[in-house]
């Protein structure tokens, strides 16, 4: 098939993950191969969740007895389940587009309903569960450290979101409370897979004019004309790994930001703002007259346009969907006040 890669697999429970029907008092048993698939996909950084018509407490208890409950993010389990609504909600909570979501269920009518209501979602039959790790849609090119810990990073984010929901008061105060630390450093060769992965996976907070391959990243890494900066984030809720990348083309006195991207996992935390401020500061330290940036408008990345505008970049020529921004380096904004930025 095509390039489509699944980032999240949503499981039905009865007769899909396990055989038997929990609510009818059956003694349910994990389907052969289910555990192996769950663990394998998890290790690849593919997220998993649940859409099921079931008693939530009983179902989670059952998964806990098998040591599997922690593998599922935002499980949607209720007696009045509408599967398309559950799946859409999961995608929303994980900040994923539906085309990156797959749903597996034994019931043909549920599969048909989801396929009808959410045509972008890939619908799979329960029998396929054991062989999913061998299919192209669940393949990963490079297994990064980030991928291995992706679920834990999301779990830190789940906790942070819960704290934010119960927060009364100003958003800025909440951001301070998070005690965010952002480490900015020059990328090393060990970062290449993660950089390539972020370029491939990031849609909303990505200015990239073109999609880079792993090879392109290596090429820039080995070139003295490029500077690659990565941002690693942590806060009081845990670690988020490498969440931002900035690639600057530095040819003599002309510097141009070729890529600025932030993982959607940490959107709204000021990572893009901090990276951009860092780029501006570095350009000024070099005594440059201006800093340029390229931006490709897509259906999803309007926030990045606003990021440039609100940091004093002037919009220049637009050609073939590409916009050139320029900053005159006269007034440079400070790092966001709620982030402890550490440049190493």
């Amino acid at each position, binding site marked *: 098939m095509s390039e489509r890669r699944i980032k999240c697999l949503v499981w039905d429970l009865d007769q899909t993950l396990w055989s038997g029907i929990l609510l009818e008092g059956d003694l349910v048993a994990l389907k052969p191969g289910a555990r192996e698939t769950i663990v394998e996909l998890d290790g690849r950084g593919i997220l998993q969740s649940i859409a099921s018509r079931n008693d939530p407490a009983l179902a989670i208890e059952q998964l806990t007895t098998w040591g599997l409950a922690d593998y599922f993010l935002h499980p949607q389990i209720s007696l009045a389940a509408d599967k398309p609504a559950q799946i859409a909600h999961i995608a929303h909570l994980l900040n994923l587009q539906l085309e990156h979501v797959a749903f597996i269920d034994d019931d043909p009518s549920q599969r048909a309903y989801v396929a009808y209501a959410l045509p972008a979602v890939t619908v799979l039959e329960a029998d396929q569960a054991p062989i999913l790790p061998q299919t192209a849609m669940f393949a990963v090119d490079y297994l990064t450290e980030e991928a291995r810990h992706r679920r834990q990073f999301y779990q830190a984010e789940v906790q942070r979101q819960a704290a934010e929901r119960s927060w009364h*008061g*100003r*958003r*800025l*105060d*909440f*951001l301070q409370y998070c005690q965010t630390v952002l480490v900015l450093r020059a990328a090393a060769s060990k970062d290449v897979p993660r950089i390539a992965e972020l370029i491939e996976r990031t849609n909303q*907070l990505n200015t990239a004019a073109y999609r880079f391959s792993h090879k392109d990243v290596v090429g820039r890494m080995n070139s003295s004309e490029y500077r690659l900066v990565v941002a690693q984030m942590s806060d009081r809720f845990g670690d988020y790994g490498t969440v931002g990348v900035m690639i600057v083309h530095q040819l003599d006195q002309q510097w141009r930001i070729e890529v600025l991207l932030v993982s959607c996992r940490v*959107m*709204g*935390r*000021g990572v*893009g*703002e901090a990276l951009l401020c860092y780029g501006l500061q570095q350009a000024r330290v070099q005594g440059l007259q201006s800093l340029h940036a390229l931006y490709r*408008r897509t259906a999803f990345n*309007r*926030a*990045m*346009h*606003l*990021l440039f*505008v*609100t*940091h*004093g970049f*002037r*919009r220049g020529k*637009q050609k073939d969907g590409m916009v050139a921004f320029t900053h005159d380096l006269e007034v440079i*904004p*400070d790092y*966001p*006040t*709620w982030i402890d930025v550490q440049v190493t």
Partner: protein
Amino acid sequence: MKSVEERVRSIIAAITGYGPDSFGADTPLFRGGLELDSLSGVELILRLEREFGISIADEDLDLASLHSVQTLCHFIVESGRE
């Protein structure tokens, strides 16, 4: 009827958690002021579009119009005229 400024203020209040009258008309909305980030900035624009029945093109946005409540009100009134 509520003034344009009151309507703008209540939208900003909903996004930031600041009280609608707790910041100045010339307080920066983004960096160095209320610290809206780019994502909440997009939310602000979407809400303004809905509230005022206008359509805001990216090309028309600059820091001068997005700076504060005052500049934003001016921008909205001008947009509504077109």
